């Protein structure tokens, strides 16, 4: 029972628990809090996996930006808590069955597959931030640039769409 295992256990419990609560809560604040917990726990998982940079980015982007964005999204639109309850139960059950089936299949796949033995030592002591930086700006420079363009376009597009129309008409 190493410390790593305990950390993993706790973090994954928080992740899944947060996700499940997020799905089942009906009040906005609760949802966003549980969402934040999930995201942060995932960041912890990343750190556990030796991906500190990704973990930090996760905290920045997801826990920081996206959760807040979602909060705004929910608050800006009319939120009626009672709405959720009247969903189509028949559809819910069907979806549940499908999802469970998918889970079963995947679980079976994961369990029955042979995985390579975990490496004896950690890959390298070189901070993977540097490694990432090297790779991003050498090998993946074009996707990186494209992503930036995508972000720009998304930014502009989001502004245009969310802007109030009809003022000039």
């Amino acid at each position: 029972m190493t410390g790593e295992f305990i950390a993993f256990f706790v973090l994954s419990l928080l992740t899944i628990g947060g996700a499940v609560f997020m799905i089942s809560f009906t009040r906005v604040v609760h949802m966003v809090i549980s969402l934040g917990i999930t995201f942060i726990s995932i960041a912890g998982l990343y750190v556990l996996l030796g991906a500190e940079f990704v973990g930090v980015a996760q905290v920045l982007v997801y826990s920081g930006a996206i959760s807040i964005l979602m909060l705004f999204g929910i608050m800006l639109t009319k939120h009626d808590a009672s709405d959720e309850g009247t969903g189509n139960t028949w559809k819910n059950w069907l979806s549940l069955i499908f999802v469970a089936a998918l889970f079963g299949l995947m679980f079976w796949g994961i369990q029955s597959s042979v995985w390579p033995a975990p490496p004896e030592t950690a890959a390298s002591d070189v901070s993977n931030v540097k490694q990432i930086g090297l790779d991003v700006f050498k090998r993946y420079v074009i996707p990186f640039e494209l992503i930036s363009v995508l972000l720009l376009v998304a930014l502009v597009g989001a502004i245009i769409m969310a802007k109030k129309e009809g003022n000039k008409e």
Partner: protein
Amino acid sequence: MDTLMQYAWLIPLFPLLAFIVIVSFGRQLKEGAAAVGILFTAVSFGLAVLTFWQRFQEGATDYKFSIDWLKVGDIVITMGFEINQLNALMLLIVTLVSLLVQIYSKGYMHGDERFPVFYQYLALFTFSMLGLVIAPNLLQIYIFWELVGVCSFLLVGYYYFKPEAKAAAKKAFIVTRIGDLGLFIGICLLFWWTGSFELSQIFDSIALGKLEPWMITLAAILIFVGAIGKSGQFPLHTWLPDAMEGPTPVSALIHAATMVAAGVYLVAATYPLFIASDAALNVVAYIGGFTAIFAASIGLTQKDIKRVLAYSTVSQLGYMMLALGVAGAAGYVAGTFHLMTHAFFKALLFLGAGSVIHAVHTQNVFEMGGLWKKMPITALTFLIGCLAIAGIFPFAGFWSKEAILGAVYEAHRYDLLFIAILAAFFTAFYMFRLFFLTFAGEARGKHEAHESPGVMTGPLLILALLAIVAGFINTPYAPVFGDWLLSGEVGTIIEDVFGAGEGHAAAWLQIAALGVSILGILLAWLMYGKRAIPSDAIPEAMPWLYQLSYRKYFVDEFYHYVVVVPLGWLGYLLNLFDKYIVDGLVSLIAKITRGIGALHGRAQNGQVQSYGAMVLFGLLLLIVAITLTAQGGGVLGIGQ
């Protein structure tokens, strides 16, 4: 003199001309149509007399002429005409009766709205009947056979607005058609077996032994089935009494003298076929015999004057069939002879009945009576007819009936002889029952009867004369007619097979037959003339027997429930089958297709999440499929 027979084809042509003229100018002619019909038929009659006379003089060689009508492959089908003894005789009978009936109709149908139509049909019938009797081949016989059937149908349904007439016409057509079916099949089979429709060639083939015995029997019986239909023999007799719905002259012409005799004529014309098969002859004889007694027993109780006569016709036709079936030259002569005499006296009886109906406007004999004084000519001629049909010396019926009895006796068919004599007794009884009820006693109906006009009584007198004298051409002492008839080609074949038959009964048989007839008349007189015996004694004593006879042995009902009703049911069943199974199957396929479409349509509900679920489901299926099919190759099956 040979030239005259070459023009025999004109005989049927004149009535056809009359038909065309009346069809074209019927509306203008009005009652003048009668004149046209009579005139053209008279010409035909003249020609027929000349032809007959020539035949009578010359005898021997038959005259035959034909033209190509149709080529089918290598087979040439011809149309033509043939004059032999039998034809010549039939020509004479048909033209004579037709002429007389047309003259008579001028009075009987006077004032009818569709007067020209009536003559139109009569002319067409005369044409068809004449065409039938001069036909040299079976195909032509069949063609005219059907045509006379149609004319009969048209004339029975002449009073088209009467539902009974409609039903009777339909029945007449369909029932005879059932018989025609036999003829049709027989003709087709004979064609394939002998390669020809020509009667002469068929006879040759039989003579040469080309046909197996069973073929001959089958063909003969099939042809006889045609005759059964046309001549109203049991079991296809039911149409004939119903056919009395037609105007009475029609009954006289078609349903007594000529068309119904066509069956007998057909058997006589194809007689070489029949005599080659004993079985076929027996069938003819027994059906004929049975019909004779069967119809006679029904005739005993009928109340409608025309129906009595109709059953009498059926019975007499059975007599003729009996004669033909008993075999031999004697039977052949006797049957044909009776055909001729019967044509005269039965036409006479019908026309007489028509005259009575014309006067009293009812057909129920129990509403007549006492007409002897009011319509003397009609009564007298009717009496002559009755005497003739009852076979009283020296009327025509005596000689022909006696010839039949003789033929049967000679052939040692005592069972048939007994039937024939019994039938003769019945005949005498019901004919005189009819006579006494109609003419004797007191008037029972409310009617001002008076004698019919001359145009109607004229034909009656002529026919009465013939009914008296026609028998003398074939007395046992001078069988002129028989000798002549057997001198033709067909006659020669018959004589070859059987040898010349004497065909006349021993004296005791003559006396016995006469005695039986007189007994019948006496009984009728006692019951209906003098009323010494109450006429309802038998009905009261044995009601079931009376009912059986009066209701015609329930044959009609039997057919209705055994044939007509099941056919209707079958039809309804098949209709349902057609609607719901045959068509339903197709509709079902269409519906399934549409249903599947609708199902998919419902899935297209615009709900993104449903689509998502669907996609998920598809993904699952794919994964399962790939996992199952790629064994040992890992999840994606790439490993191999």
